């Protein structure tokens, strides 16, 4: 009888420890990203290795019903260029060029991983809605071949220029989705040009 009680206690204790440790790891993604590729403040899972149970669990948690990497590449940024977490207390300038993909978009998420509430229902920008920075040059050939650039402002306060509302969040995440990206993107995930995220002093 005594051993049965010990056995039940051991099993229960082990269940609590094992389950808690698993949930802790899933909730602390920043400490479990050995399979990620980093590109400045952006990280990406290059291959959704669904035979890897941890990856599969992580994808279910942070991106339920995400598409395979052959269809969409998901870059995520939760920190600025200096490695500081993105939050609503600060403003950020995000400057980038056009990714080489059939379709691309930026979306901001709050610390609950849902869209940030705001009266204007502005949740992100895509290739159709973003305003590019006018580039003036006296050289028509240069103007023709220069990559268009854009600047977004991630801020609690409204801005006229590609404003991304940050709401009231202690941790923000920006997702850059590339649909049907060019082969060169897949080969150079760590080095393709991705936007800088700079905190406004």
């Amino acid at each position, binding site marked *: 009888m005594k051993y049965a009680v*010990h056995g039940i206690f*051991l*099993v229960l*204790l*082990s*269940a609590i*420890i*094992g*389950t808690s*440790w*698993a*949930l802790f*790891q*899933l909730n602390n993604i920043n400490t479990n990203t050995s399979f990620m590729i980093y590109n400045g403040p952006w990280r990406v899972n290059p291959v959704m290795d*669904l035979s890897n*149970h*941890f990856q*599969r*669990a992580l*994808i*279910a*948690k*942070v*991106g*339920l*019903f*995400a*598409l*395979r990497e*052959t*269809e969409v590449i998901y870059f995520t940024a939760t920190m600025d260029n200096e490695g500081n977490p993105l939050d609503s207390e600060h403003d950020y300038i995000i400057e980038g060029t056009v990714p080489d993909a*059939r*379709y691309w*978009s930026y*979306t901001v*998420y709050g610390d609950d*991983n*849902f*869209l*940030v*509430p*705001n009266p204007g*229902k502005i*949740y*992100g920008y*895509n290739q*159709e*809605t973003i305003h590019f920075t006018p580039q003036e040059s006296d050289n028509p050939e240069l103007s023709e071949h220069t990559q268009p650039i854009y600047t977004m402002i991630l801020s609690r306060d409204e801005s006229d220029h590609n404003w991304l509302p940050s709401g009231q969040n202690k941790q923000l*995440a920006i*997702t850059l*989705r590339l*649909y*049907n990206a060019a082969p060169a993107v897949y080969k150079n995930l760590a080095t393709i040009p991705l936007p800088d995220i700079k905190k406004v002093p």
Partner: protein
Amino acid sequence: MKKALLYTIICFGLSYGFYELTIFYYPNLVYYGFYQKVAEMNPDLENTFRILTAPDEDSRLVVKPNPDFAYASAFYNISEHPIRIKGIMPNETYWSVALYQPNTINYFVRNDQEFDSSEFDLIISNNQNLQYENNIYSSEIIHSPGSKGFILIRLLLKERSEVLEQEMLSFLTSISIEAI
């Protein structure tokens, strides 16, 4: 002392086992949680398409929703019969058909450029329904790893306008699903 050491080793071993079980079944739990949330709102849950307009801040069914898309979704159950899904989609915009297992693995995805036309006509079958291998229909047969899963059809909305959204939604509402 020996007993304490033995119990500690057993505890470590069991804990690791529970850790692995949690990680392995976590996606199934997430899927089941989603299934229950949808079931609360929709009594006819299986083999029926639901149309979802572009998500906003009130959309809390799935984390990190993409606000640039409208969706048609359905839980499928082919334990008794395969199902056939058909639809006519708009030209010149991205759309895709994706299928998921209950452990959330995306085992099939095809976008508009990979279909022969703006129409799709698919039969979802598992291996038990061998007679449909002869395919009396003109549909393409997609083999489901199991008897249940999830269908998600995405349709890109290039901008958030009510007119465009209504136009795109009319394509999604044309999608049919039938047991065969």
